[in-house]
């Protein structure tokens, strides 16, 4: 017979059960959460292990860290070489031969106050420099440092590289526009003008290697030069590509976009702090990219002395080409922007076309040469 006392007893005995249920629910819930996190972790780990080679390439060796270190080294060597050429010493205080100077400079620039002008469009002003740096860093994925050390190999990677690089002057024009300064606006237009002048000669110069290799892939072009470097067959194209590359980067003979004695720093006038650092790094990244492309397209890529690792071969040639970049940038006076267009269209374009045509005729009439080229 049930009484109200029994009800109380039942209620009292129910408390531990209820507590047990609550606790066990929480334990199960926590265990479920932990196990699902563990599952995600296992999944990610399996992906990482499965793609460890790709991730290592993308992040460490031919990828981000290597390229950023390369940029820092490039800035250091450029400053050191410019100093040498100008009878100075260049950086020498921090580190051996000033090797750590660039880290100090980067820390200084990053920790500086970022001043955004009143008339600037704030959102774009914050967005564009990092976008520029990303755009310039992306094509490094296609550079074949070795037959196995590369990040991506598409059948149309050469086209893709130029597609990425076309965006650079657009960003320069935009950042000149949104900075809200007359000097940076003029600089932005000059950057667009530079690209207008040099892009077509540059792409036509790269047509030659692509035709000879029968491939639009940067990797394919590099591999096709096992027999003979294309600089032997297309010397004029090499020169036109170098000149057009310098014009596209906008360094010294063609530095109308950032001419510091005319328009203070061109489209970069208003950038300060971290934003300036990004645009500055992007310029050197572009120089590095063009030196790497020059090595790949004309100087036989990773082919070279057989007893040296292929990567080392590539890097030696890369450094030599970069050295010539620096020599050329410290030899000539700045050209006016209309002169840049005139010389690029009047001399560079016919020369680049001429060399391609000559190479094609040679292949058509001397098939033995074609066999040599293809590596047969």
């Amino acid at each position, binding site marked *: 017979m049930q009484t109200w006392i029994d009800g109380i007893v039942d209620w009292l005995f129910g408390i531990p059960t209820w507590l047990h249920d609550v606790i066990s629910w929480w334990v199960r819930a926590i265990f479920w959460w932990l196990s699902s996190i563990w599952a995600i972790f296992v999944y990610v780990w399996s992906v990482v292990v499965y793609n460890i080679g790709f991730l290592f390439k993308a992040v460490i060796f031919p990828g981000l860290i290597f390229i950023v270190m390369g940029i820092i080294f490039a800035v250091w060597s450029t400053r050191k070489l410019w100093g040498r050429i*100008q009878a100075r010493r260049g950086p020498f205080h921090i580190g051996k031969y000033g090797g750590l100077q660039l880290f100090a400079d980067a820390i200084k620039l990053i920790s500086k106050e970022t001043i955004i002008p009143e008339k600037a469009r704030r959102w774009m002003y914050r967005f564009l420099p990092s976008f520029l740096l990303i755009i310039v860093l992306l094509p490094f994925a296609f550079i074949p440092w070795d037959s196995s050390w590369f990040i991506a190999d598409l059948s149309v990677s050469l086209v893709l590289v130029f597609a990425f690089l076309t965006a650079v002057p657009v960003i320069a024009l935009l950042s000149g526009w949104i900075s809200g300064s007359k*000097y940076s606006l003029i600089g932005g237009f000059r950057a667009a003008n530079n690209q207008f002048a040099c892009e077509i000669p540059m792409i036509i110069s790269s047509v030659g290697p692509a035709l000879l290799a029968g491939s639009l892939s940067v990797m394919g072009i590099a591999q096709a030069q096992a027999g003979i470097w294309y600089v032997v067959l297309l010397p004029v194209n090499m020169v036109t590509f170098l000149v057009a590359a310098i014009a596209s980067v906008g360094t010294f003979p063609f*530095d109308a976009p950032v001419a510091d004695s005319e328009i203070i720093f061109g489209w970069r006038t208003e950038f300060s702090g971290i934003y300036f650092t990004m645009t500055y790094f992007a310029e050197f990244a572009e120089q590095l990219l063009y030196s790497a492309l020059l090595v790949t397209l004309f100087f036989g890529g990773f082919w070279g002395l057989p007893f040296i690792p292929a990567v080392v071969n590539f890097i030696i040639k890369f450094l030599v080409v970069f050295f010539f970049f620096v020599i050329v940038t410290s030899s000539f006076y700045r050209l*006016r922007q209309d002169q840049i267009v005139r010389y690029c269209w009047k001399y560079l374009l016919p020369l680049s076309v001429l060399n391609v045509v000559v190479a094609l005729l040679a292949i058509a009439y001397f098939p033995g040469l074609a066999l040599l080229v293809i590596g047969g």
Partner: protein
Amino acid sequence: MKTDIVDDAIEIWFGPQHVSAHGWATKLTLVGDYIVECDPNAGYFHRSAEKVMEFRNFRQGALIMERLCMLEAFLAEYPYVTAVEKIAGLEVPERAKVMRTIMMEASRIHSLQFWWGQFAAELGLFTMLLWPWVDREFFLDAFEELSGSRHAVSYNTPGGVKYDFNEGVIAKLERAMDRIEDRLPKFKDMLLRGPTFRVRTQGIGQFTAEQGLKWGLSGPNIKACGVPMDLRKDDPDPSLAYDMCDWEVPTVHNEDHPGESDAYDRMVQRFLEVETSLGIIKQLLPQVPDGPIIDPKHRAKANRLPEGEAYGRVEGTRGVTTLWLKTQDKAQTPWRAKIRGPCFSSYYSLKHLVPSSKFADFIVIFGSLDPYPGWWDR
């Protein structure tokens, strides 16, 4: 042309904060890429030197003159010194005359070397900024050996010079001259024969001799038009020794546009100036006579001057530098000093030279006139 006439016009201050505008500001009105109006503004570098001179005695005044343009310190302080000498009636010893002339020509070379580097940097080649400046150091070493200071030499004094030549000075001067002679072909390759230099400067900032004379230009800027106008020949100063040597006024004759000069001609003219100055120094160095560098009896005469007024003038690196000095009787300081700097006229001639040229050429035209802000804002 007013701004409201052309809707597209934008005004740009090539202003006091610009990288290559060190102490000057020019307002430019642009339509597209062309400059339609140029408004030079003096006054950003004003140090009221003429007023300060009224409170300094006749020994101290030359210090102010040389601080107006440190690059041609020997030349800049000369007008003041010679004006004092004229009023006081001081005789300069022969040795001091020759030494003055030698050091003035050395100062001219050093100033022109500075300008090569500056103009190259304005054209965007920093290699050529540093190369002439390296050679300039050798002249600075000679100046330091002579007077004890690299730039502010304070060498000329009323009645003579302060410091005597010794073997070290002559050796250093000869070393500097050998160095510049070695390097002149190299600089010609880099500057005059450089293809990018030629396309940037030929036909830029062109004006005729009549225009230049009307604007009041002098010195290398007018000599580049083919006008042999040189104070060293036209008005031989009795207290300088230009008549002791054999030299010609260097002028440029360009066959493409005779009687006119562009930025390229002005660069050629400056090379000729350096060669002429080298020739003068080489002829004068062996014939420095013995004797005192300053007459000790005359020294005290510069303390108090009689009443009078005098012009002192000299053919400077950038043109004719003139100083007018008026004194009252037995005064320790000048009553009024007035300076005519050579660069004022070349700076304000931009008003006529620059319009209808491209914006990128503005700095080329400006730099080719070899302006120095210290000379237009005293």
